[in-house]
């Protein structure tokens, strides 16, 4: 190929007539030629020259490597064989126009075009070219760089950026990011749709406009605390939804992105509207509370005879004492000392009756659950008082094995009473039919291996039977007139306070019901 070029140049040179400088010129020319040849042959870009008819005069080694043709194949061929079909006409038109008018239609430096390999594969190239006039004819030389790999890498990067952007913009979640100082620098379209703010409005601290005025201070404090501590962020707040101009409960979470040295460089966060979930949760809690209350009323109904007795006893004493005094008064026979004693008894019995009523009212009142720190032994004692007559009437021996130094538990007093009362009444009912052995109910409190407070209620009754595993199922009952709700409700109440409730067989007879509650110190939720 180099020889051919030389010979073609020689051919051009052949028209020069001066022979004196010929030798010197020839040697200089040869040197320059050699230098150019070296550059051209070692170039990694394809170098191709064409004449003004568009025929290829020269192609270097790199051209062979890039286009797949042997250099000899290319000489004399039109340049257009190196172009895809659809570009050929364009090229010919443009080339012809340039030759005719001298007007350039494309950039001669670094133009990106598509080329065609011998095997038919199209590929991207970057072309720079220049022209040279020899003997009244234009010769064009182009430098063609195969940019497939660079293009591919660029495309890949662009595609990955696009995918990421598409992801953040089309994902049905509200996403945001913030600078290390906590200023919001990006919110996706979901956030903008939800809040009705523009991408500019939401920047910095602009998002705070959408936070409910009762929550905004707390949230701002929480966010700035997070930004300074670097701890993961999680905060519930009411956010104004643009769609219906209502405040809805949302939760925002964020994690920091750190550089190699551990310095926070950015925050990435989400916002989730959990209003419906929260409302459902509240409705569920209310339903559960109502169910628990109904169950308490049912329990009270079952205890009605005992309660009537408990109230009637002091009332009877009050009426008797009062009537007796009236009689003595009518007979002018009332000794003040006798009267004083009678009145003292009346007051004591009145107080006693009202205490019974107060206990029952507290038990069945419609009040939201309220967790306080409780001494479980104290609650057990209260319930034993409530069930006292029932135990007494059924000749049940009660044994208490309380650990005196128990940690407090965090629970709702009434719910805990309800569970205990339920388990005690179950125990009583399981023992009513027992005549051949002592009826004993034992209550034990202690700390279990995990540090939870454990309560065990053992009876010597008829035992769990073969359907023990169904005990905690709603509407399952072994009683003739039970609703089958007691144990199911008891379990949900205990689990609601972070504990567990289960049953095992007692030895040699009866059943043991166990429940645990976390110690108050451990879980101050």
């Amino acid at each position, binding site marked *: 190929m180099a020889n051919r070029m030389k010979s073609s140049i020689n051919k051009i040179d052949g028209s020069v007539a001066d022979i004196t400088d010929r030798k010197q010129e020839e040697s200089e020319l040869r040197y320059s030629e050699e230098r150019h040849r070296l550059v051209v042959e070692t170039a990694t870009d394809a170098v191709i020259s064409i004449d003004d008819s568009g025929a290829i005069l020269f192609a270097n080694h790199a051209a062979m490597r890039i286009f797949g043709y042997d250099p000899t194949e290319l000489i004399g061929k039109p340049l257009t064989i190196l172009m895809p079909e659809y570009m050929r006409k364009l090229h010919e038109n443009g080339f012809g126009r340039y030759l005719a008018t001298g007007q350039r239609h494309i950039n001669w430096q670094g133009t990106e075009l598509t080329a065609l390999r011998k095997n038919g594969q199209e590929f991207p190239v970057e072309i720079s070219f220049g022209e040279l006039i020899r003997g009244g004819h234009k010769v064009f030389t182009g430098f063609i760089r195969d940019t497939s790999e660079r293009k591919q890498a660029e495309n890949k990067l662009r595609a990955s950026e696009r995918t990421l952007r598409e992801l953040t913009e089309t994902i049905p979640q509200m996403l945001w990011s913030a600078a290390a100082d906590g200023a919001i620098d990006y919110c996706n379209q979901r956030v903008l749709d939800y809040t009705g703010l523009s991408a500019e409005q939401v920047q910095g601290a602009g998002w705070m406009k959408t936070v409910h005025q009762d929550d905004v201070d707390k949230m701002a404090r929480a966010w700035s605390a997070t930004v300074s501590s670097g701890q993961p962020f999680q905060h519930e707040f009411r956010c104004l939804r643009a769609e219906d101009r209502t405040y809805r409960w949302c939760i925002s979470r964020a994690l920091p992105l750190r550089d190699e040295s551990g310095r926070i460089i950015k925050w990435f966060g989400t916002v989730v509207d959990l209003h419906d979930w929260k409302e459902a949760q509240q409705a569920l809690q209310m339903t559960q509370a109502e169910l628990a209350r109904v169950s308490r009323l049912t329990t009270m109904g079952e205890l009605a005879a005992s309660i009537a*007795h408990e109230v009637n006893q002091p009332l*009877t*004493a009050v009426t008797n004492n009062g009537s*007796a005094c009236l009689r003595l008064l009518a007979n002018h026979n009332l000794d003040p000392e006798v009267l004083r004693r009678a009145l003292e*008894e009346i007051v004591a019995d009145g107080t006693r009756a009202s205490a019974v009523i107060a206990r029952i009212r507290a038990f069945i009142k419609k009040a939201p659950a309220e967790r306080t720190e409780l001494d479980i032994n104290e609650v057990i004692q209260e319930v034993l008082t409530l069930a006292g007559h029932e135990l007494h*009437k059924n000749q049940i021996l009660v044994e208490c094995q309380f650990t005196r130094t128990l940690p407090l538990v965090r629970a709702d007093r009434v719910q805990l009473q309800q569970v205990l009362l339920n388990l005690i009444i179950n125990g009583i009912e399981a023992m009513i039919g027992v005549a051949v052995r002592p009826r004993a109910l034992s209550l034990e409190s202690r700390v279990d291996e995990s540090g939870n407070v454990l309560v065990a209620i053992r009876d010597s009754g008829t035992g769990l039977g073969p359907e023990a595993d169904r005990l905690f199922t709603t509407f399952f009952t072994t009683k003739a007139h039970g609703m089958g709700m007691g144990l199911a409700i008891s379990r949900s109440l205990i689990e609601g306070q972070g504990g567990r409730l289960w049953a095992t067989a007692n030895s040699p007879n009866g059943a043991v019901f166990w429940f645990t509650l976390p110690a108050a110190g451990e879980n101050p939720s």
Partner: protein
Amino acid sequence: MSVAPVIFVIDDDPSVRSSLKFLLSTVGLQAETFDSADSFLHKKPPDVPSCLVLDVRLPGLSGLDFQRELATRNIRIPIVFLTGHGDIPMSVRAMKAGAVEFLTKPFRDQDLLDAVRVALDRDRARREQENEMWDLRRRFDCLTSREQEVVSMVVAGMLNKQIAAELGTAESTVKVQRSRAMEKMQASSLAELIKMIEKVKPSKDAS
């Protein structure tokens, strides 16, 4: 002669016990109180007119079980039942088993005092009846066996002549034995004698 009656109050509640005792005292009635049926049964009842004021729902032996227990022991003391929460079947059972009254707590004082009075009257009557029986029995036992035979036949409606024929004696002998028996039984007429013998007769048959 009037013996001071005693009312036995059995209730597990100390306030109820002491208030009942106080109420009964205002009409001059003396009461003894017990916290359970068992503790009452451990005490030997005194030989005076008495009655029981008893809560149905007693710990240990229930009121109704206790009523049955007393009947098996042949202790026929009238019972006034008290209940905190009485149901009809329970009161029916109690009344059928011979209870005087079934009062729901809290009750009117007059209702209780009336019931107690009725119970004491019933006990007095029972005691008088028992005394009378005992007396008749004693008199009847004073008759000779021939006199007892004659009296039985008289009561059965036989004439002196028929009795004499049956016993193979003279009619005059029967007449003498009959009038001696009337005298010993302190019967002023034949009708009275018949009544007396009919009262004694069941126990005579039993013996």
